[in-house]
């Protein structure tokens, strides 16, 4: 219920944005030399003569059937464009989240166990740094150091030019497509390309995940069952990694889902820096060309995913935590 109201609100916002654009949609369609009757006909065809609430109603209907209009840039339906570019963003965001979880969770646990020791300070500094550094600048510095100076990472893009079009796109996620096709060099090349942008993006989720893990763990380690487990003679490792961390997992899933959603935001800037052909780059290109159908379509998709992930994390929480039922 709440979700559908939020979604409707989202559509209202995008509808409103579409209305305040100083570009006349009729002129954009017919050109400024069209005679008055053509102009009037197109105006009626586009439904612009109707009262606003009716226009909004039609707009909602169209969006719900997946009709975001045509993108001027590619002259294809916006939805097709989004379906084409989305796997690249998904790939980037997933690798980034995996990095954030694999490194961030153990770091958070260690920080909680060694409160106010060096690892605890490291996490605090990392979070502070993450709140202060522009992600696009970090991406550029990363390219400079790891690509230009050290030569460890591959350059911008998803693949080297020589590896383009070897693998047939099945899922659109190159890492998976390459594995399915058994093309190991393509897979290795794709990994070398995704690692740097994913690390940059993953840094931000890592800092957040580590901090949240730390505070959840601190709360758990104060509980009586931890004392009981220790009194029973369990090893400290088992108490921390099994008992305490096991109970932290539930709220942690929510945190991870939320960072995943936030990566969509960071990916706009990161994709631009790394010429990563995903939703972020698509949105930026559309913005610079003032291609409003594409901009609003991408905005709706991102907003919907955001709302969806929020809902999903809520459901996961209820599913995993018996107390929330």
């Amino acid at each position, binding site marked *: 219920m709440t979700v559908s109201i939020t979604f409707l609100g989202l559509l209202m916002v995008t509808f409103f944005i579409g209305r305040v654009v100083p570009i006349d949609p009729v002129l954009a369609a017919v050109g400024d030399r069209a005679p008055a009757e053509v102009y009037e006909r197109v105006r009626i065809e586009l439904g612009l003569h109707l009262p606003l609430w009716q226009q909004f109603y039609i707009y909602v209907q169209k969006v719900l059937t997946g009709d975001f209009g045509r993108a001027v840039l590619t002259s294809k339906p916006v939805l097709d464009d989004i379906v084409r570019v989305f796997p690249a963003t998904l790939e980037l965001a997933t690798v980034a989240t995996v990095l954030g979880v694999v490194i961030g969770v153990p770091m958070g646990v260690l920080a909680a166990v060694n409160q106010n020791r060096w690892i605890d300070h490291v996490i605090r500094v990392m979070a502070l740094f993450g709140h202060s550094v522009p992600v696009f600048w970090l991406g550029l510095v990363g390219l400079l150091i790891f690509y230009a100076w050290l030569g460890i990472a591959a350059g911008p893009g998803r693949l080297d030019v020589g590896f383009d079009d070897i693998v047939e796109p099945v899922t659109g996620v190159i890492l998976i497509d390459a594995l399915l096709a058994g093309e190991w060099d393509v897979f290795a090349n794709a990994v070398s390309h995704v690692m740097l942008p994913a690390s940059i993006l993953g840094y931000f989720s890592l800092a957040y995940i580590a901090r949240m893990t730390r505070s959840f763990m601190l709360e758990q380690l104060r509980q009586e069952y931890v004392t009981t487990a220790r009194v029973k003679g369990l090893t400290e490792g088992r108490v921390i990694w099994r008992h305490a961390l096991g109970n932290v997992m539930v709220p942690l899933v929510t945190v991870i889902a939320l960072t995943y959603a936030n990566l969509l935001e960071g990916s706009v800037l990161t994709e631009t820096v790394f010429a990563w052909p995903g939703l972020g780059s698509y949105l930026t290109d559309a913005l610079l060309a003032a291609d409003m159908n594409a901009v609003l379509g991408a905005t709706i998709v991102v*907003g919907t995913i955001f709302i969806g992930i929020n809902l999903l994390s809520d459901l996961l929480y209820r599913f995993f935590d018996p107390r929330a039922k």
Partner: protein
Amino acid sequence: MASETNRIDGEGLRAWLLAETPRSRAQSRLGQAYVRWLHFLRNPLAMVGLVIVLALVVVAALAPWLADQSPYAQDLARRLQAPSPAHWFGTDELGRDIYSRLVHGASITLMIVGLVVIIVGPVGLMVGTVAGYLGGWFDTVLMRVTDVFLAFPRLILALAFVAALGPGIENAIIAIAITAWPPYARIARAETLTIRNSDFISAIRLQGAGPLRIILGHVIPLCMSSLIIRITLDMAGIILTAAGLGFLGLGAQPPMPEWGAMISSGRKFLLDQWWVATIPGIAIFVVSLGFNLLGDGLRDVLDPKGK
């Protein structure tokens, strides 16, 4: 009392501020502020933040004197020069002195943050307190609206607004402000809900004060501290969003020496002339760090729950 207040030498003032039994409201207020300041002084990181933010203000104010070269003066014969005594941070693709541009960019950053805060603070405060105090359908509608804004990546919403309004620094400020106010409304509302039912509000109401007077005179002052903390902490976010918009070419337009736009124009020369793109980023980083440290420090001092 007159003899005490007249003695404004160091020790006397201190004693007056820290008096156990203040004799006037002003003395007690100033005394509290002084105690908070002492707390603040004891936090070295917060002091670093304060120094950075003050330095930003000073640099912005004294830009014409600190930088002897114009931020717009082109000299194509000396384009893309490495840092040197003549050009501390080198020159950009049009031969402009990067140091001068950075110094002049400080006032742009300050202006963006200042304008956003001036728009967003009062709006959030009014919406939140009115919704919290009046309750009912008014509250429900306003909170639904903030829900929609919060259920949305902020940068992307700002991007969509800028796309609609057209690129430019004024529109970037408007777009950031539109997307930034809901959290403040939330905070103000939450504070108002706890204040609303307290005895002193009932007392004022019994004396005949109307809602407007209660909200303006009694609720808002109590919401201020948590709002100030939140705004200071958010300033870094505002700077980063504005820089991001500038970087994408949707915020400040060339030749304005905005730091994000400077990074964007230096990007093309990243591999050979790294300083053009990286140095403005360091400026953004340092300033955001300053606001973050200051915000953390203020939270420790002002937040009554933290004590």
